[in-house]
């Protein structure tokens, strides 16, 4: 059971996701980091597919790999696109960091191992797009609408910021 195809695929995807994350931290060029991040996002989408959550997988790729990454690349290129981050070194810092990572790992290993998931209804994977839609628009309609208000506020904020810049430049001229 352990070496089933699902297990192998999961290990592969998990490996790519973790490697993407590690590369993202260790690479020096900003654009390389973003590309590493894309690999993480895509393999997480693959893990969603393994869990039969196809809608979330598609949205994960659409939003994270598609939109968020492009916006990050835009941000990088509009500022200093050849920027490199300098690795900061320091022995004490490294040791403390290693201990912190180790502690984090241990705590999460124990925590995840002791979690007892109650057996939920196992029809969630059937028509999950429809189920998500029904849940969002009937049971969770108010939080959903609140999210859209927050997004609207962010949008208007961005427009206000962009507009003000324009006017100031015009005043200077």
């Amino acid at each position, binding site marked *: 059971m352990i070496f089933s195809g699902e297990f192998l695929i999961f290990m592969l995807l998990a490996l790519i996701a973790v490697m993407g994350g590690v590369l993202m931290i260790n690479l020096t060029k900003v654009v*390389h980091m973003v590309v590493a991040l894309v690999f993480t996002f895509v393999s997480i989408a693959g893990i969603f597919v393994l869990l039969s959550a*196809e*809608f979330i997988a*598609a949205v994960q790729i*659409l939003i994270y*790999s598609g939109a968020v990454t492009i916006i990050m690349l*835009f941000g990088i*290129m509009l500022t200093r696109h050849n920027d490199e981050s300098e690795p900061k070194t320091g022995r004490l810092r490294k040791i403390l960091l290693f201990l912190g990572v180790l502690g984090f790992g241990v705590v999460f290993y124990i925590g995840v191992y002791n979690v007892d998931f109650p057996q939920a209804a196992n029809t969630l994977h059937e028509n*999950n797009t429809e189920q998500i839609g029904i849940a969002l628009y009937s049971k969770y309609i108010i939080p959903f609408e609140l999210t859209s208000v927050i997004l609207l506020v962010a949008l208007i904020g961005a427009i206000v910021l962009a507009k003000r810049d324009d006017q100031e430049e015009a005043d200077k001229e």
Partner: protein
Amino acid sequence: MMEGLLAAEASWLNFGIFFLLAVVLLFVVLGFVTYAILAERKVMGFMQLRYGPNQVGGRFGLLQTVADVLKLLIKEDTIPKLADRPLFILAPVIAFTPAFMVLAVIPFTDKFYFADIGVGLLYYIAISGLTTIGIVTGGWASNNKYALMGGMRAAAQMISYEIPLVMSVIGIILLTGSLNLNDIVEAQKNGWFIIWQPIAFIVFLIAAVAELNRVPFDLPEAESELVAGFHVEYSGFRWAFFMLAEYVYMFAMASLITVIFLGGWLPLPFLGFIPGAVWFALKFTVVIFILIWFRVTFPRIRADQLMEFGWKVLLPVALANIFLTAILKELLNIF
């Protein structure tokens, strides 16, 4: 045939069959690309009152593209000294892979499809967004200002036109109640969606041309302003991969338009004796012809006009179409 295979238990034999079918599809698509390029040059030639390729491979230039591709493959592979080497090599791969991946969900006929997933339409749109990353990284890795500008334009354009593209199909999803492309075709039994959703069709067609980076929306590679845009520094088979990605997307997008708006493999009334594959091929060819026709007849639009048109015209029209569809569906209850 495919239903049985898709439902069967996963095994090495099953994997082998799918792998083989995918390889066959790859070669079919490569054949399509070869002759689509020739067809494009021929149609353009006739529309501009010239002959187009007519030397290599007989009177119709049937081997012209083959010769061109052969030339590209044996060309020297140059990588600029100051380019970002790993990304420069990776970018064409990132651009091409999603182009082939999207073909998995397209149902060609009622018996021949590769995947029957519930979110087919969303899958197509999500995966096709990945190509933009390949184009932007290619433009950036070339370390060339024209390439970078082309890449940025591509990103801005693809993000802007993806939104009307998605919004225009929401009307169809409302009518069908499914994102599955097979179900969408089945729902067109009593009238193709080009009849029920004409506004959506026009918005989708315009946004699709923009997504394909074809004239009149070919700003990322506008040769008169940016030399060649994001692939200035590419040559040989790496450049061929970018071109291949573009034409495979043309194949995929034409198939998608056929499936969503033109009823896929469904026949016209009283002509049901003609097999579904023939119908699909006919509709597909018409869409390809329209795409080539656009390229010959329209001038390229300016970057600011492009953005204004996308956000101020296409998006509101697509939103109005959703609103209208919802009202009609609720009030008239015709579906």
